[in-house]
Each structure stands twice: as structure tokens, then as C-alpha cells.
């Protein structure tokens, strides 16, 4: 019993080795490229979320219109003029902003790291988010410990 590897013609082995070598080099090079892409995207999305946070100003604003509750994060929605849903900030259990939406011009511009929350560089006071949600009658069972 045993396995036999079908032989290659002379020179074929060298070609296969070269192809394998190129494939290995490309795959190994992907590791830093993948990590770089991840960081670059996080910077870009964080910058967008930070700009929305700056537009919102203090979280406890008179323009706080409402909230949305999701499995992994909660969102605060702010109005601007007649636009009831103009700005939205979504915050995870640790206070990291994981999504921000700007709807001021009628279309939604979304900045999001909900799939990669650990890369978010924008953080707010989770305790204050909880306090605002409680003020809007969100039961404690829906809120993480601050």
C-alpha cells in the first residue's frame, strides 16, 4: 500500500517550485498588507465618526430626539431643524463609538466600525449614555453596566 506521486517532466519541477515560491511570498506579504488596510480603514472611519461627534456637541443636548437599541450597541439620535434624524451616534458597551450617521442633507452618510469595534479611536462617557437612555425610559435590562 502507498501513494505514488505522478512525476513531472524535466524542468516541470522547477516551474512548480517557482510558482509555489511566488504564491508563498504573495501570501506572506498579505499579512502586513491586511493589517495596514485594517488600520487605514479604522483611521478613516474614526475620523468620520469624530466629525459627527463634534457636530453633535454635548451628548446631553436639547436636540436629542430619541434612541435605537441593538444587540451590541445603542444609538442616540439628534435632530437639526425639521430633520428629526439628522445625526446619530452608536456606542458599544465600553463607550466606543462604533457607528455614526449624518443625514443632514437628506441622504445617510454612514461611518462604521461595528464589525471591528476594537479599532475605534472615538470614545464617549458610557455612563452618560446610560443616564440619557434611562431618562428616555429605557429599562435597565437593556443597558450595559457603565
Amino acid at each position, binding site marked *: 500500500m502507498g501513494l505514488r506521486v505522478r512525476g513531472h517532466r524535466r524542468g516541470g519541477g522547477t516551474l512548480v517550485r517557482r510558482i509555489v515560491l511566488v504564491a508563498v511570498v504573495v501570501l506572506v506579504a498579505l*499579512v502586513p498588507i*491586511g493589517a495596514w488596510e485594517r488600520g487605514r480603514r479604522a483611521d478613516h472611519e474614526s475620523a468620520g465618526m469624530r466629525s459627527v461627534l463634534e457636530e453633535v456637541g454635548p451628548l446631553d443636548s436639547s436636540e436629542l430626539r430619541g434612541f435605537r437599541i441593538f444587540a451590541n450597541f445603542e444609538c442616540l439620535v439628534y435632530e437639526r431643524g425639521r430633520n428629526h434624524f439628522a445625526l446619530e451616534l452608536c456606542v458599544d458597551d465600553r463607550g466606543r463609538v462604533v457607528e455614526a450617521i449624518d443625514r443632514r442633507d437628506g441622504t445617510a452618510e454612514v461611518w462604521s466600525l461595528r464589525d471591528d469595534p476594537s479599532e475605534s479611536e472615538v470614545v464617549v462617557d458610557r455612563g452618560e449614555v446610560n443616564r440619557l437612555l434611562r431618562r428616555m425610559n429605557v429599562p435597565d435590562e437593556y443597558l450595559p453596566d457603565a
Partner: protein
Amino acid sequence: MTSRLRVQLEGAIQVAVVGLIVVIALVASHMQPWNFPAFHPMRAFALIELAALAVAYLVVTRARLSPLPGAAVTATFTLNALLSAAWSSNASVTTDRALGFAGLVLAAAALALGAVDRPRVAAQLMLALLAATTLIAILGLVELWRAYDQAVLPATKQQGARYNGIGQNPNQIPMLIALTLPFALWFLRESRGRLRAVALAVVLLLAGSLVASSSRGALVAAFAGCVVYLVAAVPHRWKAILAGGTALFLVAAALTQLPQPAAENPDLYPEFGRTPSLGPKDIYSQLPLESEFGFPGENVDPGKTRTLFSASGRLQAWESAVDQGLERPIAGFGFGTEDETFVDRSYGFVSDAVENSFIGVFLQLGALGVALLVAALALPLAAWWRVRPRLDPEAGEVAAACAGAVVAGVVLAVPQSYLTSVGSPPTAAFWISFFLLAALAVRSRSVAQA
């Protein structure tokens, strides 16, 4: 001794293939308790068992390890998937799913290597895939009798009632049927006597389940796969096959439009089906997350009806996913993260996945991943097309059926995300057919050299 062991292993492999396909379908189904998380490890068990039997068969038969067309690229794609855990936002999910995919590729490649010099073995595997699909279709009929409400998606104002069978939705099992329908036609052509009546019943059962589901993507994929098989198997009658196939396809498409939309939407699970409002400040019902784009407003009837040609919101979802993929265009977000990364924000679209395997892979593994996948898919088909005239009749017929299944799978990959999801019902059948096609293309080379 070796001959007897070989035959026993061939039987065991057939049973293991049936077991794998059926277990995957049950776990993905709406049937309890098979779809409970506690049952999920059965898939890994069935896959490992199949891979072990396939490798044992190679050892027992002293199989020659011929390089299969597309295998090296598929291996590179798989390594890329495993390696992507290094930059994935969810490394454990990526590792788990990449290992599952690697296991499937290994098992399918080992099965194919055992079939290189034995088209009879390829035929046995095709029969096993067909038997599994038939069993699943019969289970669907049992479910229709046992739990009608689960087996049929009720009519809404947008679409008529659709047949689920054992699936969680009407597209799930038809995807598997679309892939294996060329095998059913092959079985019909090859069988004689009473067996032919059985084969005809199988074709009618599968085609009937497909039409009743109104799954348009699966219908188109099945049509493409069956036409490729029949034209390759009977090339001198290609005009009649194309004309007859097109006529049958049009009849099937018309039949899918028979169930009429309902006058009112059904009130499903009133106690579970709604997100409770947490007060006047809870704006979820006014602005649902999954409907950010195109939301007509609370309790507003969109007035759209699902037709043969409507894309069910896919085009907007695809555009959104491509835009998202361009944020990490070279290496992607990590294998197996499509359902976590992609966010459905379109009112007209309902899915956690992009519902396009190529865009889904772009999201997961970037442009390099898509390039590898496309190359991997093209190579066995190209190799088969090149050697097709030189294949002996038995191998030619089997290879044509495999090519039909692969073409059906590739067509299906356009409206469905499934090619790399081992837990999806058609995925294992696709990769087994894919490697069998590669093995049969290699066989013609070895016959020619001999």
C-alpha cells in the same frame, strides 16, 4: 483482500457523502431539534469522517497523486482564507470557518484523486450526491404533510406562497437541487428498466420542488447546468436540446408565477415577530436599521410585487457591499466574516449576506481572493472543455454531468452567497463536483499518454 477493502471503502464513502449532505441540510433547516446548536458539531464529524475515508481509499488503491487542474489555485485560495485570521476583525470566526472550508476542500480533492483512474467511482459519488438531494426533497414532502406552516412560506402582498421543504427559506434547498439536477438527468439517461422509472420520479420530484419554491436563481442555474450536460453528452442534437430546454424553462418560470400575492399580509407570530417599542423616544419603528435606504415610512405599503425580473433589492445591496469592500480592497475583512461585515441597510433587501458569492469573497478576501476564486473555478472547466472530445463515452458522460453541476453552481453564485460557506446546503456538493470534473479531465490526459 485489497480488492474487497476497496469495494467496502467505496460503499462507505458513498454513505459518508450522503451523510454529510443530509446533516448539513438538517442543521440549516427549520426542523427541530436538528437545527439546534448542539447538533452543529455533527457537520464537522461527518466531514472529518468523509475526509478520512477518502484518504484511506487513496492509500488502499495506491492512487497516483496527479496534479488536478485548479487544485493548486484552490489550495492557495484556502491558504489565503486561513491566513486572513491575521488581519480579520474576528480571528476566531475566521479560523473556524477557514478550517471548515479547508476540510471540505481536502475531502473533495481526496475523493477526486481516487476517481482519476476510475470514472465508475466518480459516478458512484454523483449517485451519492443525488441520493442525498432526493432524500432531502422527500423529507420536504414529509414536512409539507407534517407541518404545512413550516414547509410553505405564506403569500404576502408582494409575492405568492413559496415552498420551503425542510429549508429555513425557499432558496436554501433549491440551491442544492439546482446543482444535482444534471446528475438526475444523467441517472435518467444511464438507467434502464424499472430503474429508469425511479430516475424519472427523482427528476420530477426535484424539478417539482424547484418550481414550487419559486427560487428564480436556482431555476436559472438548474437550466444552465442541465443544458451544459445534455449538449456535452449529445452534441449533435444541441439545437433540439437548446430549444426543448428553453421551452421547459419558460414553462417552469411561468409556473412559479401561478401562486398569487395575498390581499393582506399574514399576521405571523404576533407574540414574537415584532420589536417592542420602549417608549415614545424609541425611533426604531420610524427608522428601522435594516431599511435605512428606501424606507417608505412606517405602515406604508411599498406597492411592489415580486416578479420574475425584480432583483429583490440585490443590486443596491451589491453596490453597498462593493463600496464597503473597497475600504479594504486587497486583503479584505477576513474569511467567514461576510455576515458580520455586511450590513443590510436596504428596505428592499432581506439577508445577512450579500447574496453574491463573488462580491461576498471580495468583502472577505479582497481582490486577490476573488481573482484566486475565479481562476480556480475556470481551470477545471477549461481543462474539461479542451479534453472533452478525447474522453471515452463512459468518462465523457460522467464528466459532462459534473460540468453541468459546476456550471449550475457558478451561475448560482451570482444571486447567492454560498461558495465558501460550508454550512450552506449546496456548498459540499459543489466542491465535490468541481474536483470530480478536474479528476476526469486529468484522466483523459493519462489515457492519451498511455
